[in-house]
């Protein structure tokens, strides 16, 4: 699904991501963990095309997307969420989601001027897609509420729905469970499993070890921009390098 070869990103003299190679398989939950500043978010920005790598290759289903612009990568089926998703606070949840399907539509200025049939059809399709995504994340009941009025956990789900409305194959979730309580974290974990059950590939960055260890098929550990380990949760838990570099004295809490 996603194959990364010797990926490096330099910011000035600092290697935020240093020679990382990894393969994420389709239809799996892949997690990236590591201390703060380990280069996890930079890794996501490289994969999604927001930043261009200094060297290395990124292959999505065999297609080289290394130098591709972010919007092109999104069109190839990479959806993502951010640590904080800036949405239009004074608009309804549904209104915020409709644009998610924009990349699959073609209407331009002329269509708007004459209100063409294509525009009408595409707007309906986008609205349907938004409803479908909202239904998938279990938020159909807040469809008409303003973003400003929904809870933190609902915001996380809306961010998921927005990524899903783009019809992705691979979703990159940047700390999807940050700032929500343990019960809600379980709910979000269920949602990620549901995505995989529906044929998506999930790749997430997360600090909540309980959640990661319980659901990830594969974990990659980054530290100072370098991959220090990868494997199943069990392998990671018993890996001395990981314990040393990352889990340290928090080992008990993680286990």
């Amino acid at each position, binding site marked *: 699904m996603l194959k990364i070869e010797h990926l490096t990103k330099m910011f000035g003299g600092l290697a935020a991501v240093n020679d990382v190679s990894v393969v994420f398989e389709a239809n799996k939950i892949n997690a990236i963990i590591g201390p703060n500043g380990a280069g996890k978010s930079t890794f996501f920005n490289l994969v*999604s*095309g*927001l930043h261009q790598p200094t060297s290395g290759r990124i292959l999505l289903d065999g297609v080289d997307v290394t130098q591709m*612009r*972010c*919007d*092109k990568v*999104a*069109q190839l089926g990479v*959806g*993502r969420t*951010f640590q904080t*998703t*800036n*949405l*239009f606070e*004074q*608009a309804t949840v549904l*209104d915020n989601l*409709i*644009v*998610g399907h*924009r*990349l699959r*539509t073609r*209407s*331009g*200025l002329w*269509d*708007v*001027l004459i*209100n063409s049939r294509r*525009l009408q059809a*595409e*707007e309906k399709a*986008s609205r349907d897609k938004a409803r479908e995504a909202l239904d998938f994340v279990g938020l159909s009941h807040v469809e*008409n*509420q*303003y973003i400003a*009025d929904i809870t933190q956990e609902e915001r996380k789900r809306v961010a998921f729905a*927005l*990524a899903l409305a*783009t019809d992705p194959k691979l979703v990159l979730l940047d700390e999807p469970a940050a700032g929500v309580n343990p019960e809600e974290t379980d709910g979000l974990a269920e949602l990620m499993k549901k995505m995989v059950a529906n044929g998506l590939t999930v790749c997430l960055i997360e600090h909540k070890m309980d959640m990661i260890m319980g659901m990830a098929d594969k974990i990659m550990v980054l530290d100072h921009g370098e991959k220090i380990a990868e494997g199943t949760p069990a392998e990671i838990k018993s890996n001395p390098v990981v314990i040393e570099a990352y889990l340290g004295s928090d080992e008990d809490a993680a286990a």
Partner: protein
Amino acid sequence: MFKFGSFLMTPMAKYLMLAFALVFPLLAKNEYQVYVMASAFVWAIAVYGLNIITGFCGQLNLAHGGFFAIGAYTLGLLSSDYGWSFWPAFVAALVMTAGLGFLVGVVSLRLKEHYFAIFTLCVGFIIYLLMDKWEELTHGPIGVRDIAAPYGFGLVDFTNTVPFYYLVLAFLVFAIWFMGRLSRSLLGRTFIAIRNGDELAESLGINLMRNKILAFVLSTTYAGLAGALYAGMVRFIGPEEANINHTFDMITYLLVGGIGTITGPLLGTVGIVWITQSLQFLEEYRMIIFGPLLVLLVIFFPRGITGSFLGWMHHKRQQPQATAKRQASKATAATEVESNA
């Protein structure tokens, strides 16, 4: 009050506003009032343009007044120096502002946020300097005289204030109509997504540059349209049309009326133009009243008249649902307490 609020949300309110605008020349005490209203409408058209790039697309364009002046100068120079009649020169003014908007957009939109604002501030000033100093083309500080008035194809005489008022009203209605259609369309949603954040928009597969340029060109075309109408109305223009104060006036209209809304630019512009008129006897001191009013408005109604009203209406409507939800969550909280005990 609630019912009145709901009424304002209906299409009927729009038609009433239009009807008022149509009969306004009959209600006006004198021709001067019609003239003031017509000029308010001209500015409103330009403010709608600013609303596209700044209100919807989130890019603060401080060259907007400059493009207004380019529209005015294109029409003015073509008609006075080159003998073009009004309507061809009018179309040329639109093409010119769209074309220059594209060129400036391609360069300036590579910058983000305040860098973009500062860059366009400079562009606006350069436009002013060109009009002031490039005397061979623009006549410099003397300005442009003898600008053609729109001809009415033998049907109406637009040199009279009242017919001109209706002409401007027609363009304003078109400008608002298109704005409304744009805002509800996928294209408008694309602009709003860009306002919410470049990175999020890009990761949704939106081509940032193409959409920002489109919004920018649309906005400069609106400014050019307003500028050309302005030149046809006052028929004498000077470099002061490109003064940065015009841009800040328009930003004020937009903020007061409600940035990113459909009726906001109209309410803000017409409202402030009339308040300014009625405070005219205070001359420069009117800012003593005006300034604090503006500060209070921005503190307490940051979303302007329309934005605040829409928010208030939305919460009115959601209230029954929200109360039900709160009760439900209280119930769950109670059961949690019980189960913990």
